[in-house]
């Protein structure tokens, strides 16, 4: 059984919480005591039906305001797969949460209300998912029951969305007509929409092919920690612990360590007490080298003729996540793979309007929840790949040195 992480986006009105509630309920991830609590609350509030959306309301402050303010993670499993849902709120002011949820997702699920069709919000969600290079996208056209399960309504929305996504980078798109409330095409194929010959949402989630999403060619191994037991039994043991970002590593492979550029061969790869024949993403392993090189945290092990670019100049798309705007000359801390440095903002090239995709080159700052293309200069070399090639070595976070807060997310061009 493998793992699929997906991010959902949509507002309360699109029925997102109802859909998630149904996925959890039908896969038996909801327990009786949780359901009873929700039934009781629904009754107290005078609702006619059990509001499944209450299952996913997390914090009291959210319940009080009747909105979701933060990313919530949900879990369910079928016999085929385990799923982690990053449930993100849809409002424009929560772009940062959507970016957060999308950053680890294999698949993005955008919901629209069949009666409304595509809205500014659904377009924005698709743009963010494509910016974050989420490899698979699903548009669920919800509330089909309220438009009489009309194929024409569905086809019109689908065509409009397909046209829109041609301007984006969307490698895989599925469009599914559903009714989260009635259960049409959620787990089983709907008898109300015999004109639809695709899979149900659950079937799609269980079967979407994610094995090829990972890069198995370009070896990138950011060194996290040096394991030196300093015990009699392992007197000379020196291993480099880390998580394989991409590529397949094997004992005997000739490798190069950056930034020093020194070369060696892999002597062995350890996974706890076992020596293993190969390591691939996203395994956490310990790599031993044949030669005694000076390797430390922040270095990167790669292949001799296939290395990331060491650079102090970053050209990146940045999502800004705090009230105080990002401005030129601002200094920040930056964390990229296992390497930390400081960075100064050299230039804001443009601000991206994520509704119209218009690039505003006059912009002099990026405000909360805004996304723009920015040039940074760092105090030391970072070992980077373009984000479109590698989501691990192509991403970074920016930290405010005074407050310690994470204030920006960057994707390298």
């Amino acid at each position: 059984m493998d793992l699929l992480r997906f991010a959902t986006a949509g507002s309360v009105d699109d029925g997102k919480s109802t859909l998630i509630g149904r996925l959890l309920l039908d896969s038996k991830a909801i327990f009786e005591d949780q359901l009873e609590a929700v039934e009781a609350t629904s009754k107290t509030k005078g609702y006619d039906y059990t509001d499944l959306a209450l299952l996913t309301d997390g914090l009291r402050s959210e319940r009080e305001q009747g909105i979701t303010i933060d990313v919530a993670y949900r879990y369910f499993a079928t016999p085929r797969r385990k799923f982690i849902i990053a449930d993100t709120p849809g409002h424009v002011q929560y772009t940062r949460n959507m970016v957060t949820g999308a950053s680890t997702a294999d698949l993005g699920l955008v919901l629209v209300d069949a009666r409304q069709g595509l809205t500014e919000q659904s377009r924005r969600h698709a743009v963010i998912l494509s910016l974050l290079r989420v490899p698979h996208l699903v548009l669920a056209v919800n509330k089909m029951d309220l438009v009489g399960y009309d194929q024409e309504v569905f086809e019109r929305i689908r065509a409009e969305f397909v046209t829109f996504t041609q301007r984006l980078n969307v490698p895989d798109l599925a469009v599914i007509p559903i009714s989260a409330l009635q259960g049409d095409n959620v787990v089983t194929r709907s008898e109300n929409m015999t004109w639809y010959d695709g899979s149900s949402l659950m079937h799609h989630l269980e079967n979407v092919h994610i094995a090829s999403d990972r890069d198995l060619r370009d070896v990138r191994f950011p060194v996290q920690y040096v394991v030196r037991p300093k015990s009699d039994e392992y007197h000379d043991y020196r291993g480099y612990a880390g998580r394989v970002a991409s590529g397949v590593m094997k004992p005997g492979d000739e490798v190069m360590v950056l930034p020093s550029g020194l070369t060696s061969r892999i002597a062995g790869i350890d996974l706890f007490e076992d020596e293993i024949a190969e390591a691939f993403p996203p395994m956490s392993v310990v790599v031993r080298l044949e030669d005694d090189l000076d390797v430390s945290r922040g270095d990167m092990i790669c292949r001799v003729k296939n290395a990331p670019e060491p650079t102090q100049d970053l050209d990146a798309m940045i999502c800004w996540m705090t009230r105080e705007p990002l401005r030129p000359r601002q200094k920040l801390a930056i964390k990229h793979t296992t390497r930390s440095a400081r960075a100064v903002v050299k230039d804001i090239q443009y601000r991206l309007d994520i509704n119209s995709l218009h690039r505003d080159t006059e912009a002099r700052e990026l405000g909360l929840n805004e996304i723009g293309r920015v040039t940074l200069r760092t105090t030391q070399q970072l070992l980077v790949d373009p984000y479109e090639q590698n989501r691990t070595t192509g991403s970074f976070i920016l930290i405010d040195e005074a407050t310690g807060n994470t204030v920006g997310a960057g994707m390298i061009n």
Partner: protein
Amino acid sequence: MKSAADYRLSQLDELESESIHIFREVVAELERPVLMFSGGKDSIVMLRLAEKAFHPARLPFPLLQVDTGLDFPEVLATRDAWVDRLGVNLVVASVDQAIADGILVDDGRTSRNRMQIATLLEALESGGFTAAFGGGRRDEEKARAKERVYSHRDEFGQWDPKNQRPELWSLYNGRLHEGEHLRIFPLSNWTELDIWHYIARERIEIPSIYFSHRRRVFERDGMLLSEHPANPCREGEVVTERTVRFRTVGDLSLTGCVESTAATLDEIVEEVAVARVTERGATRGDDRFSEAAMEDRKKEGYF
């Protein structure tokens, strides 16, 4: 020639890899980590993952246990066996000691569970610990679903759910000011069933009370509680002997058991897979007082 499909990890291996990455990241970046160890299944799985993360070196941090004075003896025995085998340093912070030292006042109404909070915060502060690993999982409870892996606590140990740091990719932010600390949750993405599958797969030693056994119990608030001198029966409560096991392990005045004949790991996995009530709802008095019981305790500095 192998295909891409041959290079997929099982979901359990992917969770393991993620947790190991978190342990190493904390140890590499933070000054004084500590692992909060209760002796329950989640903290034992944490310990196993930490062991894997640093092998063949020893654990580079101590364990911290808050002794409520009401811990199950079977749990303490398992704790000691693990401490011996790993050769790790164990710090015990005792609620009774905190009362004796005047850090806490036992008013006779506050549960031991609640009194753990002050004891824990005091132990973290006096040990100078800046990062405390906890076994919390996001599937446990609604308030936990929005918890970060690196959960920031202010100088009072409080959690501010509305002001959490965004957490993207696997880039964790370990920045701290003087007096602040982080709670680290390496099991964030594990479910109860994942924990049991992992324990079964790795044949991990856990306390015997998780397995079916005969026990003298009485009913209170719809839970089956253990007969114990420190947990006296109230009027009308009748002690009977039943075949039970525990789904969670906490202080014995609040932790209920369930009737079960599951005597092996495989039988427990089977039982958990079809369970229809959450482990906390079924057996934890501390989470049932209000809809936001966990949220409130977390804000104050609970595990």
